[in-house]
Each structure stands twice: as structure tokens, then as C-alpha cells.
């Protein structure tokens, strides 16, 4: 699903050039659930932005769902994103003036669907995350966990190949974080979505099948989790 080869990304900051990713190679097969961990500045979010086509690398090649996105123009990337990628962000990133349903409908506007089909699909996505009864609520009328579940519904509403989540539990309490990560795990297990989650939270990362540790822009180590999510509730209780 994701194939990164010798990907380098540099940023200019205060006149200095920072190499955030240095000749990185990364593979994520179809249907995998990967957690990216590492200290701040290790390049986790940069990987997500590059794989999601939100940013372009300075060097290297990135193939996602069979397409070389580094060869795409900036004008082509939005349409590609709309078809193939769903995003979940740390700060929920719902549009505050829209209801939960309208937020979920946003990406569906870009799909070749009728109005009724769009609504049906949005309601189905909200049903998956257990918030169909709250679909007419505005974000400020929802709890943090509910907001993030709406964001997940929005990310999966278009039935994308790939869901990218950047610190999805960063602003949540442990209980809500577990619920959100459990939901993501279900998406992976039941709907066969490929998931890449950036997290600082080791408990949250236990829901993933693989945990990749980054350090200074390179892959430091990889852990396999034979039974994803099994340790999380206990760890969650310990954390509380």
C-alpha cells in the first residue's frame, strides 16, 4: 500500500536547514495497522504528511495505492487525496459551524454520488463510530472523544484505501483514547483499512499490529504486536 524509497525531507528554520527525514525507506502493506512513534522532531508527522500528499519530499519516491504521488503536481494531489486517503488529526479538526453529519458529508461532496447516496454513506459512517444519534450536534456540543469519533467517521466516509491519524488520542482522556484506538483497530480488522497512526502514547500504540520507532529521521527499530489491543485496557486502567 505504502512504499517510501530514499525519502528525504528538509525544512528551513531560522536560517538553518533541518533534515527531518533522511533517505528513509518504509513499507506498509495493504491492510496493515502501523503506529509511528518517536521523540518530537523525529519525522513522524512528516511521514504522514508526505504519504497523505499534504507535502512533497525533497528527494525520493513515495508510492501509495499503486500511484507515485511524488510525480503528481500540486493540482493533482487534492483529487487523489479525496479518493484514497482519510485523515484524522489530533485537534479533531472538525468545522465548528457544521453539524457532525455535515462534517462527515464534506469529503463526500467530492465523490461522484447523488445527494441521497452521500447522506446514506455519511449516516453509515456515523453509525460505525456510534454517533448516528448525535449527527445533528455541532462539535462544541460533543465531548472530545465524540468529536474524534466524528473525525474518524469523516475519514472513512469515502471508503478510502488508507487512513492516516496524527496523534488521534493526543487531546483525549485515557477512556476516550482507548475507545478511539479500539475503533481504529476495528476499522482495520473489520473493514480492512490500512492504518498509519502517529502517536506518543505507548498504550495507544499497542492497538497497532506494528510499531515503528523513528529517531532523527530514520527508522530506529520495529516491534510486532501479535495481539493488538489486548494489553491496552489493562494499561489504560494502570494509567488512570
Amino acid at each position, binding site marked *: 500500500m505504502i512504499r517510501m524509497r530514499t525519502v528525504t525531507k528538509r525544512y528551513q528554520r531560522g536560517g538553518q536547514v533541518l533534515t527531518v527525514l533522511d533517505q528513509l525507506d518504509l513499507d506498509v502493506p495493504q491492510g496493515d495497522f502501523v503506529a509511528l512513534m518517536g521523540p518530537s522532531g523525529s519525522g513522524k508527522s512528516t511521514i504522514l504528511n508526505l504519504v497523505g500528499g*499534504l507535502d512533497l519530499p525533497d528527494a525520493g519516491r513515495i508510492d501509495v495505492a499503486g500511484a507515485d504521488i511524488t510525480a503528481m503536481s500540486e*493540482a493533482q494531489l487534492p483529487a487523489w*487525496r479525496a479518493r484514497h486517503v482519510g485523515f484524522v488529526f489530533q*485537534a479533531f479538526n472538525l*468545522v*465548528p*459551524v457544521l453539524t457532525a453529519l455535515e462534517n462527515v458529508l464534506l469529503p463526500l461532496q467530492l465523490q461522484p454520488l447523488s445527494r441521497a447516496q452521500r447522506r446514506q454513506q455519511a449516516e453509515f459512517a456515523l453509525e460505525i463510530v456510534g454517533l448516528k444519534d448525535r449527527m445533528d450536534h455541532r462539535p462544541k456540543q460533543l465531548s472530545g472523544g465524540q468529536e474524534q469519533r466524528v473525525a474518524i467517521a469523516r475519514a472513512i466516509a469515502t471508503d478510502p484505501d488508507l487512513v492516516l491519524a496524527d496523534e488521534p488520542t493526543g487531546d483525549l482522556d485515557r477512556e476516550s483514547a482507548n475507545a478511539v484506538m479500539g475503533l481504529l483497530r476495528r476499522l482495520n480488522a473489520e473493514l480492512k483499512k490500512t492504518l498509519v497512526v502517529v502517536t506518543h502514547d505507548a498504550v495507544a500504540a499497542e492497538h497497532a499490529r506494528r510499531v515503528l520507532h523513528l529517531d532523527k529521521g530514520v527508522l530506529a527499530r520495529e516491534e510486532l504486536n501479535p495481539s493488538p489491543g489486548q494489553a491496552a485496557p489493562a494499561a489504560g486502567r494502570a494509567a488512570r
Partner: protein
Amino acid sequence: MKAPWLLVGRHLRAHWLRTGLTFGSLFFALFLFCLLVSLVTTLDDAIRQSADDRVIVQSAVSLFVDLPLDYQPKIEAVPGIERVSKFQWFGGFYQSREDFFAQFGVDHDRLLEMYGAEMGLLDPEGTVSEAGRELAQAGLDADRRACIIGEGLARQYGWKVGSTVPLQSGIFPMRDGSAWEFNVVGVYRPLKRNFDDRTIFFRYDFLDETREAGLCDGGPGVGVYSVNLAEGADAGQVIAGIDRIFENGPQKTFTVTEAAFQQTFISMMGNVPFFVGTIGGAVVFAVVFSVVNTMLMSSRQRAHELGILKALGFSDGAVGTLLMVESLLLSLLGGGLGVGFAWVSQEGIRVASGAYLPTYAVNPSTAGWGLLIALGIGLVAGLGPSVAAARLRPVQALRSEG
């Protein structure tokens, strides 16, 4: 282009105070623009629509110095002249000094003929017709107290044919303190925009006889003579001919075309039309900054949201257009309503201005310019935020505070 248009209305509604204030400033700016420009065009129309076959004879000393009555036959004898009528300013008011409008003593037997292009007389059915003109003329001929009134006055005071209009005159006050009484025999509708609908014309001979009988104060004479030229007559030659007769007095005349006569009233206002036009432009200019500021604030506050839209797959063009549409909607709604209000308030302003702006009107071209300006403000205000939004990189936008 697929864009979440729902967001346009939602944002305008969500920030109702900011929207309301910007909307209000656009409303008042465009209303004021139309009002001020219309003041200028109303004055210009008075000149532009003046009859080119009419000249006005006034005293060379001042408009406020009367001409002798025996000038009329001498003027009529000048070659190239068709008709001459006296026009005597009456300076009266109805009930209170605030109920002020123009009244003139005229030669009743020729006024309607001379001003056929300007005044349409209403028949009993309320339409301008020859029958209405004949009825009014018959009424003027039959009754010394007869008068005809503009339909604006008829509407305002409920006067109609058969009504008696009592007026107090500051120039010709009745010595016993009573009011002058005029009987309405006709109602006219202006046929030209420079001719107002709030004037009373009555018989000069009634005024003169009353004065002769010692029943009122005021001196003999005529304010101005209105002179219609014969077909093909050269206005310049006629003007020179009239003024030459009275070159040696007793009262020197100053004859001008009707357009030049109207121009003298506007000249009395000095550079007011220029200032009025400038203020109108300045108000609009100032409001541009206000709307630009609103749109910039709005786009800055929404950088994060714009980043979300881009991340979801909305194109740069769609995101930029969203802000442009919001700016245009705000400008066209606020400005359009201001222009609309200027349009519907014409009659009210005419009435409120009394005798000062009886022909006030908003030209369709002024309203059109108002709408174009509103559109222009929307485009200018939306351009910067729209381009910035289109250029915004999603990663950078998502990092910004919402």
C-alpha cells in the same frame, strides 16, 4: 468546481456581529453614495432637461428685483418670440412655515400651452390627457382664485380638484391677516424630470387686482418673464434683442436661456455638488477598507479550517473561491440593499426636502453604478484573502491556530 458552499452562509451567520456591522457599513455607504450622487444628478438634470426654446428675462440687478409690468408687451414684440408669461414668486406657506413649497402667479391663459412639454394635466380618471388640460384651462379661465397644483402636493395634503388651499404669503400678506384662498381646478403630473410636482400656479391677475385694491402688501411687478421662442428662432438673437430694448432702463434686463437660469441656482451653491460627489466617493472608498479588513480577519481566523478542507481534497481554487463568494455575497447583499433603499426612499426624500429638492430622483444609472461598486468592493475585499487561501499549503494551515 466542487466547494462546500454551505460554509459561506454558515460563517456569515456564525459571526453575526461582524457580518452585521460590515453589512451595515455597506448598506449605509451605498445608500449614501446613491443619495449624494442623486443630489448632483438631480441638479444636473435640471440643466440638461431645460427647454432649449425658452429664455428667462430677469432684472440685471438681481433675481430679487421685480421687472415692470409694461415690459411684457415690449418683450412680446421682439422678433422670434411665440409666448410670454409672468412668473411671480409668491413666497407662501400652508399652515406652518415648514409646509413650504413653490407658488407662482402666472398668466393663466397661456401657461398650460407654454409648458405643454413639462406639465401633463390629469383628467378625473387620474390620467394625463387632453381632456384634463381642457378642464384645467376652463377652470383657470372661469375662476379668479383658480390654481393648479402638482400631484405631489395633492398626494401629500389630500388636495384635489374642488379643494380650497389657504396660503399665507411672506411677500404679499393680506392686510387683515387672513389667508389667501385658491381653488384647485387642475392637478398636473410632471412630464420632465426637471419639473417638480410640488408647485402651485395661480392667476397673476388675481394677485395684481388684490394688491391694486389695497387688500395686501407687496409691490407691483414681476419676478421674471418666461419666454417661449417661435420655431426656428435663434435664442442668442432673441436674448440680445430683449436686453437691447431695456438697455437704458428703467430696469435693465438680464435674459438667459432656461438652462443658464437653472445653472445660476446651482452656482449659488458654489462647489457643493463637487463636494457632495467627493464625499460620496470617499465614503465608498472608506468602506472598502472596512470590508477588506473583515475578509482578512475572517480568512486569518479560518486558516486552520481551510487547511482541513484542503486535506480533505478540496482544490486550491475551490477554497479560494469560497472566500471570494463570501465577500461578494456580503458586499452585494449589504450594498444592494443600500441601493434598494435609496431607490424606494426617493419619494420620501422628495417630500422631506420640501421645496429644496422637489425633483430629487435616483437615476437607474446611479443605482446601476451603486451595484457595480458593491460588486467591486466584494471583488477587491475578497481578492487578497481568496488568493492567500488558494496559496495556503495544507500542512502550514493545519499547524495554524483555529
